[in-house]
């Protein structure tokens, strides 16, 4: 009796730490940029959710203590030695991890990247939290949802040369036809500086007395615009929305300057990464251009020519869920 118990715990310990792959549970390693970051802790929570849904999966949440590629290489090498079934990594460096991850794939380990990608040759597929088209649509939808009768909106961007913001605004303009009555009256640039963004937002409020919303697809801009709206006494008449982090926007939601804003949901992201890794390792899906891989409750992801796919629309944060997320990231 006692001996059996001892043997079992030894077996469990071996399975957990360094032993040969146990036949029953599939082991998926979630490698993050660094341990102790709220965003990744939340992603791990999502991965655990996927594991309990799938049943026969064990999640190994790991990563270096600081955000270095060297640290991640060490972690991945030890995962290869443990012969895990799949590695899902958010990379600190696009290229530096490639040789190590190639070694893992040669040993038959499924390798995917998520959040922050690895170069194509170093992974089977990459999961983006969202796509430019989805983000472009989301930022105008956020403003339009609170303007059933239409209205004037203005965009407060980062710099005139910020690639991401320019693409998102371009994508937004493409879908403007779906939002009749919504007028984009101006696009201004706050250069991702708090003081300039604040002045630009104040300028918008002055120049367009009927302005209904300011869309800021940048985390510095959205916070500064919210503060400018509060200081101008325009809470309730000008809604600030766009892309921001819950921890940074909690004050703006509380003051009412912002009704809602969006950004990826790390829980969904970790959940989806684990789901994809599971299906690829199991062999019931293959990562190839055009392939569709199931992600449980998040639907399917379709891969493009570079084997990358977008998870979903950015997740919307408002007064109902801000408290839950503001301490996470």
């Amino acid at each position, binding site marked *: 009796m006692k001996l059996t118990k001892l043997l079992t715990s030894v077996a469990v310990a071996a399975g957990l730490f360094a032993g040969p792959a146990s036949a029953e549970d599939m082991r998926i390693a979630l490698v993050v940029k660094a341990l102790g970051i709220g965003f990744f802790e939340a992603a791990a929570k999502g991965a655990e959710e996927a594991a309990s849904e799938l049943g026969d999966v064990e999640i190994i949440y790991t990563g270096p203590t600081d955000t270095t590629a060297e640290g991640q290489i060490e972690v991945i090498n030890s995962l290869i030695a443990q012969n895990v079934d799949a590695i899902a990594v958010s990379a600190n460096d696009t290229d530096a991890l490639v040789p190590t991850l190639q070694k893992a794939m040669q040993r038959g380990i499924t390798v995917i990247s998520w959040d922050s990608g690895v170069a194509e040759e170093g992974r089977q597929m990459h999961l983006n939290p969202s796509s430019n088209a989805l983000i472009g649509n989301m930022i105008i939808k956020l403003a339009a949802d609170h303007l059933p009768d239409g209205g004037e909106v203005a965009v407060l961007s980062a710099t005139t040369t910020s690639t991401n913001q320019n693409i998102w605004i371009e994508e937004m303009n493409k879908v403007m036809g779906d939002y009749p009555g919504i007028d984009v009256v101006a696009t201004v640039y706050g250069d991702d500086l708090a*003081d300039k963004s604040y002045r630009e937002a*104040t*300028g918008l409020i002055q120049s367009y007395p009927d302005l209904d919303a300011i869309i800021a697809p940048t985390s510095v801009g959205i916070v500064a615009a919210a503060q400018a709206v509060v200081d101008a006494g325009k809470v309730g008449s000008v809604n600030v929305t766009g892309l921001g982090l819950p921890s940074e926007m909690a004050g703006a939601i509380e003051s009412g300057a912002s009704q809602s804003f969006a950004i990826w949901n790390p829980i969904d992201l970790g959940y989806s990464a684990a789901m994809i890794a599971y299906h690829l390792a199991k062999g019931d899906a293959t990562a190839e251009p055009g392939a569709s891989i199931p992600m449980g409750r998040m639907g399917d992801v379709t891969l493009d020519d570079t084997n990358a796919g977008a998870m979903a629309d950015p997740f919307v944060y408002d007064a109902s869920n801000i408290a839950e997320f503001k301490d996470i990231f």
Partner: protein
Amino acid sequence: MSVLNSREAILVGAILVLLGIVASRFPGFVTPTNLVAVFTDTAPLIILALGQMVVILTRSIDLSVAANLALTGMVCALINVSFPGVPIGVLVLLALALGATMGAINGFLVWKLAIPPIVVTLGTMTIFRGIIFLLTDGSWVNSHQMSAAFKAFPRETVLGLPVLGWIAVIVTLILGLVMGRTTLGRAFFAVGGNPHAAVYTGINVGRTQFLAFVISGMLAGLTGYLWVARYAVAYVDIAGGFELDVVAACVIGGVAIAGGVATVSGAVLGALFLGIIKNALPVIDVSPFWQLAISGAAIIIAVAFNARTGRSKGRVILKSAEHTQ
């Protein structure tokens, strides 16, 4: 020197012309409420320009002011988050002390180790920003973490002007008093005008420069708290590149970059000129691609005017020497 010909008169004229042009495109800009808002928005620049003026006057330059502001602001924000009970008065004193300490480090290196000021402050600029990163790991202090009193102080309105604006007024008055009515103020001019002659009159040049850096640092520290409270956010990069605006305000205000020439009113007017441009550009519907070029051109035009009026004729004091040259 006639009043009409002075730098200050020309700057006042330039500011009025500027306001006229802006008003012709956006009349709302010159309403009293908006002018108060513009003045308040420019207050940090005025405070920093006054500190910078003293430093430049003594033939030095302080490029670390924006980094000093960011570090002091972050420390104030962190204290507020950890100990929300600390009264604002204590925080303001702490910001002054911390800023002065950082200024003293600059001043000490310039004074005792005789390192060129531009090199010293370029170095400390990066060090101060680096320290913020060490303190916070790059994370932000956000609006909802700060106490209401912390954020409200610079916004509190007294006699129609927010406290932030009043502080700029008070700092201007104090600096005016120091520069015009104290031996320290005279020493700044003497050291900048002719350091060798200053030594012969018994002025310690290094010590005077040290004190200039302390004043500049102290004002940067004060602005640090005000900045963070006003924008209700603190992170590593706040006020990035602001040191150049501060130097530009001084230069527009007729502060000679080679030292020796400066006035308090000039520095204030220079800051106001720049502040009005910064506030006007967003409302007069100018393409953002042109805005930077316009700001730059305005600075050069203002300086060109100053250089013309400021050119001293040079008096011939030795007739015979004139012919031998």
